[in-house]
């Protein structure tokens, strides 16, 4: 059985389209999306003189007609959400940023619905099962959208079966980050959640653990050191980095020793790491560039026969 695993697409239309095509492209028997599926920013498209004024990637311009749709597509490919509005509305939103919250949520949910339809359209004809989880960045309402899909299977907190019967246990929560994301929790809380889903496994040693947060101090959890002002820090050795993964995740994997650990969360930390007998993989993410990083995994007879990192 061949699995394709990707993660952290963060709202990128282009990356999700590649994800649902990856099944046929790589001849995979199943595709798994690890979490952090929602975008981080809304780009206002402010109505002006029959067109819209948009500031995107440092460029500000006024576009008209078909150009508006093209630019909305570029925004969506980068993982952001385009929002058409009047100058008055933008002024109100700038004055009271809390007002953007329901708009943000509706845009996220709309894109998630569109994605579930796309997954059904592209994967169902090939009979390739699709597993999608939420990550620590994803607000809870997104879960219902994925659950409502007729084809995509929502993973959070559950044990699901891959085509060859291998168990897939998932948890999209993460240890506390400086950004206090929707599913950031304490290490104690995280360990309870991980233990709860692992307790549902029939055969933990041959299971795949789809834990969004990578285990602590494993090369695949290396993130930058940040100052209090959230700036990157550097020294004579270059940009300063540190291990930012979860100690709870590490303890659980070391105890359970599953077949495979699939992780994401730290986009820069692409790689693999063996924790005892378990191979932990973080394919990384380059969603803003429209590049879908992923991992191809070959399982046979309860063993991991081969693995490969790819960037499509």
């Amino acid at each position, binding site marked *: 059985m061949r699995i394709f695993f990707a993660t952290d697409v963060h709202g990128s239309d282009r990356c999700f389209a590649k994800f649902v095509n990856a099944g046929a*492209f790589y001849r995979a028997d199943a595709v798994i999306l690890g979490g952090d599926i929602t975008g981080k*920013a809304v780009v206002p498209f402010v109505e002006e003189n029959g067109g819209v004024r948009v500031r995107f990637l440092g460029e500000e311009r006024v576009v008209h007609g078909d150009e508006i749709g093209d630019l909305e597509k570029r925004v969506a490919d980068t993982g952001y959400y385009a929002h058409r509005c009047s100058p008055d509305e933008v002024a109100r939103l700038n004055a009271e940023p809390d007002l953007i919250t329901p708009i943000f949520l509706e845009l996220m949910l709309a894109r998630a619905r569109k994605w579930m339809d796309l997954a059904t359209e592209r994967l169902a004809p090939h009979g390739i099962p699709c597993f999608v989880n939420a990550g620590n960045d994803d607000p809870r309402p997104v879960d219902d959208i994925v659950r409502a899909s007729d084809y995509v299977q929502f993973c959070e907190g559950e044990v699901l079966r891959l085509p060859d019967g291998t168990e897939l246990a998932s948890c999209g929560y993460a240890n506390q980050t400086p950004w206090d994301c*929707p599913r950031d929790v304490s290490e104690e809380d995280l360990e309870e959640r991980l233990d709860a889903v692992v307790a549902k496994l029939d055969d933990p040693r041959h299971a795949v653990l789809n834990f969004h947060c990578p285990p602590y101090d494993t090369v695949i959890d290396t993130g930058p050191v*940040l100052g209090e002002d959230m700036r990157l820090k550097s020294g*004579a050795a270059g940009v300063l980095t540190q291990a930012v993964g979860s100690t709870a995740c590490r303890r659980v994997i070391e105890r359970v020793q599953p077949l495979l650990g699939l992780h994401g969360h730290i986009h820069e930390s692409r790689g693999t*790491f063996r924790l005892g007998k378990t191979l932990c993989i973080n394919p990384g993410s380059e969603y803003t560039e429209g590049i879908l990083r992923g991992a191809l995994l070959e399982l046979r007879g309860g063993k991991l026969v081969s693995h490969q990192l790819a960037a499509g």
Partner: protein
Amino acid sequence: MAESVQPDATTTPGGLFLRRSSGLVREFSPRDVLVFNIVAFSPGLSIALIPLSLALTVPNVNVFALIAASVAFAVCNGLTYAYLSAAMPRSGGEYVFLGRSVSPLIGFIANWGFTWSQILGMAFYATFTVSFGIAVPFFLLGATLHNSTLLSWSDSVTQQWPTFLIATGMVVVVAVVLTLGPRLIRRFLNVLFVPALLGTLVTMYVLATTSHSEFVAQFNSFMAEHGGGRTYESVVPDAAAGGFIEQAHTLGALINAMPIAAFLFIGFTYSAYIGGEVKEPGKTQPLIIMASLAVCTLFYIVSLGLFYNTVGQGFYNSFVFLSFTEAGTGLPAGGSPVINLFAGMMTGSSVLNVLMALSFFIWPFILLFAMATVCSRNLFAWSFDRILPSAITKVDRRFSSPWVATLLIVLATEILLAFYVFTTFFQNITNYTAIFSVAFWLASFAAILLPYRRPDIFEAAPPSARRRIGGVPVMSLVGVGNLILYTLSLIGVFRFPAFAGPNGTRAILFVVGIYVSGLVIYVISQQIQARRGVDLSLIYKEIPPE
């Protein structure tokens, strides 16, 4: 009950509405970019190498014209890497840049060659540190303190076995520090950086506060005691009698000096790390990058200007010539004609000599860490991509250090170090500059071709990387500039063995051989992995989104 999105939306100066999500960092401050670039530039090492290199290869080059030409190199090379990094900020290096825009095979070959240039460079710089960073300071301190032991040591350390053992010691220190983990590396380098920079500033102070006439008097006094009585006034005529011809500055000399121009600002591309998850690139960063280049250019102009003004360029060129002839300069082996020798003569202060000595030792020593780290990262990347065995990425549990990769790099360095010290391998076969110049030459194609072969990546890049002139991407134009400059550099490296390395058939075959061995390894890996069901061609093959 469903919970709502965290209500802490904010706005950016660019007008985006952001929500709380991981990875949203602010880019480097202008001060950080400036310091980062200056550190990467290694000012002390540069002024240690450049005057000697020029005197040996193109003594009739106008140094300030060369610095200007170097700025052109730095701009082309720096922008090539800066634009590629802006387009692919989490990718890292020509391995991925070329892998995506040309092919994974070419990306690997370029990176393989570059990695070997770094390993060869580690062997070279370890011995360089002994010759110039230890022998010369021992000589100067021995002279200043009238200490015959130090004078004797300055001669001893330049012999084969002492050089090999001391250089080995340095390589072992690098291995130990890297094995003990990233935190120790950071602390080690942050601590060493301070005396290194301080010593460089002291050197510039000494050069600035010594007049030409004072230097002549100090030189004559020094040589009366330690140089067999040679005088300043005798150097130029003696060199002429020995066959050295002082020539006027020419354009031809400038063109011939292009390999050195390529070398002057090397390491300057490190500031291209943009980071962050929101691509709202600041307007100030590109300006600060250019400001960093301006600061480094000013440093060269001031330091080399001070040196040549105080010492005299004609005198220095002649002195270097004599030091490599049978007649010699009169100085012992520890008196190599590098800038710190003359700076040391200019002051009778042992404190200032110690500070300058530390600096000239630490800069090339620090470089060993940087080179080993780069090599380690490259090995990891190849291993993650299944081109090399996965055992290479083994990490020590206690210290989180890549001990297998470190061991391999250190073993290879040690073997090459032995070749360098005990054989004529480097002198006859290894053209170090050519080897890394080929990698930079190949990287040009990544910048030239990316907008055309991967328009999806190009169009998603920040505006600064997507500029066009006459419809042609600036990224491609700087890539062409980089290609031209490194073509000239490659032509030049084989013409000046004294700077770059040997230039005979064996040397050329060695360079070709390194890159061909990369091709062989990739093909073998491809076959092995194919039997395991792993297709290496999928590493960067784009999945169609339609």
